[in-house]
């Protein structure tokens, strides 16, 4: 088991290499000079040249790429931001907690709402409750995130003064952003849970369990839900991974200093070290999360070994 996990971790390396190469290539080829974006329109040609000289921007692409990779491997340094001069990895790590907390809480709230309601919906298929739940979840899932965020701010922050409209100074500040992300996700969790549960309930072994005389609760939770959980876990895991990428829109609306905005600013000013650090960090996180999901999978389902 440990050996297989180790092999999986090693597999992350070629993925990272591919991702970094592609992103570095794209950022280097798109039009726009970092020097002009960062130094401003009024900068003299000499300043531009000095900037390019200092950061080696005029060297051929492959030279730059390999120098960058070498720096990471040999000096363990991801470089300094061209825009602010700060160490980029330190900045990424400083912003990661906010993105992490928002992602964790959003996914948790979404699961706590979506999964149980999805089970109810499946068990009481076609009943009024099921219809209402399906309608509401479709509605909520189709709300654009920024719109939902603004509505919540309008009602609960500016209207009722229950929560602050934006910022990140304390726990209260995170309630509205988490709700904004959690609600649409809860809706999709609900719908997904419902459909996997329905599939599972139709299986023969469920009929057998009922025929054996097991109480309905035990059948549903101990057998049906347990089997339906596998794909649901995958969905939750990948949603979490996606949220770790930082939801830029939510970060903007709620003025949260997360990774999404960080990466976006870097891309807009063509600040390659900062953009690359964000991308590398996020890709690694995604790969690790997928690995964790697979491990959980193998624990929940004895038939699957972590490959």
């Amino acid at each position, binding site marked *: 088991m440990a050996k297989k996990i180790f092999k999986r971790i090693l597999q992350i390396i070629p993925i990272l290499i591919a991702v970094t190469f592609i992103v570095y290539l794209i950022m280097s080829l*798109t*039009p*726009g*000079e970092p020097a*002009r*974006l*960062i*130094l*401003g*329109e*009024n*900068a*003299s*040609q*000499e*300043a*531009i040249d*000095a*900037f390019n000289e200092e950061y080696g921007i005029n060297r051929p692409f492959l030279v730059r790429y390999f120098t960058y990779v070498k720096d990471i491997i040999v000096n363990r340094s991801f470089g300094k931001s061209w*825009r*602010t*001069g*700060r160490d980029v990895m330190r*900045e990424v790590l*400083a*912003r990661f907690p906010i993105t992490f907390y928002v992602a964790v809480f959003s996914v948790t709230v979404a699961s*706590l709402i979506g999964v*149980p309601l999805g*089970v*109810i919906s499946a*068990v009481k298929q076609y009943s009024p409750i099921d219809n209402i739940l399906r309608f509401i979840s479709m509605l909520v899932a189709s709300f654009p995130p920024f719109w939902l965020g*603004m509505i919540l*701010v309008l009602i609960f*922050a*500016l209207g009722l*003064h*229950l*929560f*602050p*409209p*934006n*910022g*990140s100074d*304390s*726990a*209260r500040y995170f*309630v509205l952003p988490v709700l904004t992300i959690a609600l649409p996700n809860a809706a999709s969790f609900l719908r997904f849970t419902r459909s996997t549960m329905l599939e599972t309930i139709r299986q023969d072994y469920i009929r057998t369990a009922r025929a054996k005389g097991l109480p309905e*609760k035990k059948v*549903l*939770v101990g057998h049906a839900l347990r089997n339906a959980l596998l794909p649901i876990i995958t969905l939750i895991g990948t949603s979490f991974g996606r949220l770790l990428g930082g939801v830029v829109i939510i970060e*903007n*609306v*709620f*003025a949260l*200093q997360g990774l999404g*905005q960080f990466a976006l*600013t870097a891309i*807009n*000013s*063509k600040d390659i070290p900062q953009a690359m650090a964000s991308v590398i960090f996020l890709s690694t996180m995604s790969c690790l999360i997928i690995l964790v999901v697979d491990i959980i999978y193998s624990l929940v389902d004895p038939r699957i070994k972590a490959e």
Partner: protein
Amino acid sequence: MLKQSIIKITLVLVSCLMMFTLVGCSGQKVNTDQIKFGLGQEPSTLDPNMMSDGYSFQVAANIFEGLLNITDDLKIEPLLAKDWSISDDGLIYTFFLEENVYFHNGEHFKASDVKFSFDRSIAGGYNSTGKSVIKETKVIDDFTVQVILQYPYAPALELFASQYMRIVSEKAVEDCGNSFKYEPIDAGTGPYIYVNWISGDKITLKANENYWRGKPTVSRVIFKFYNDSNTRAVAVEGREINYASVSAASYETLMKTEGINVAVVPSMITNYLAFNCSEKPFDDPRVRQAVAYCFDRKDAQLAGTGNPNSGTVTNQFIAKNSPYYNNDLNDYAENLDKARELLAEAGYPDGFHTQIYTSNANTLKNIATFLLSCLKKIGIEAEMVIQEQSAFNESMRQGGCPIFLYNYNGFAADPDFCFYSQFYSGNTLNYAKVDNKELDKLLDEARATIDENRRKELYAQISTIVNDENYYIVLYNMNFLYGYDERLEGSFSSFSRINAYDFKWNIDE
């Protein structure tokens, strides 16, 4: 069982929410020890000699001071230099410095710090005007410094009042080393001292108890960054911050909110329409004039944001309250017949195909759409090309845009700043590729003449040529809208400066 557990979970969630709200229910009380300003973007540095963006300057202007200051009505006043004299040939500026000023690190402010700061600013690469104008800075004695220019430069005093020429403590810069760029510890003489900068969140300053012009009223100043203008406006409305510039769209909501006011202040940002004057068809002044005749400025401004508060229509880059404002320029009020006539005369009776380039900014995109329909009326079929800012800058610089819509940020008032960089042949900011030798001569002479009257004559000629030729069609001067807590008293600057020193709370019990 399931139903029960769901009810339980819901109750837990709801009670969590309630707990949070009870924990910190904030009323309308405000902490009068501090002011929180909202910025539109995180500054890139706090080093005044190496700045390139306005947001950095808004913060740094509270920490560092220059030899001179420029007031909101464009007058030069003494600051760290209590007096000065200019040599007859206009080449040597001698400044007599205040003798009892101390930096935040306790060091005595001296002429050597001025020389250090000026040299550093010129070497740094962000101060292209300073670099081309200043030859040398000399220390005469501890409180006298001389700046020798390369040629007589009329707006020199404005240069010394500009953001780039602020004074930093030589010792502080040496002590900080490489981190000075974003941690300028105890390096200024200004009313506020740098405390810390939390990346992505806010910058905190504290009052300078020993400030030479008197201790500031408010002890802490915090600058928070908000990229989204709506979020910023909401933050003002929700009392998260006390003052911020807001978009025209939030004007109504904020004015209706109790306790919040919106100040409308003319800015130095001017939206304009320009052409690539070096290539067909816009190398012909008649074609350019035809475009000028096909719409009215006020309609273009309304198209921009839909809100008449967003700006003031104007036909030139010079501010209305400037002595160089030219009242005799042609407005080219909408006259479609004249426009068609001019096009026919220039050889395009059936119009032609072209493109309007602009950036992703909403206001500019709206104006571009409006212009498309106006051009159509005179037979010019245009398509809009929207580019992301960096690509757009590139296109303008390379002269690839037949028509482009952009704005000019006139961060100084002297006409030399806006005319020289944009209309002198070959200059970087001369996006329209203007190449008019007569204009060049006038520009050179105007910047070197000290005689006010002669300068006014010259700039009248220059602005008339630019207006007649329609290289640029200036549309309107944008307004800054500042949303602020009514209990806050302060000054609102056209230069988009935030002088925290001038602000104080006015709470009546």
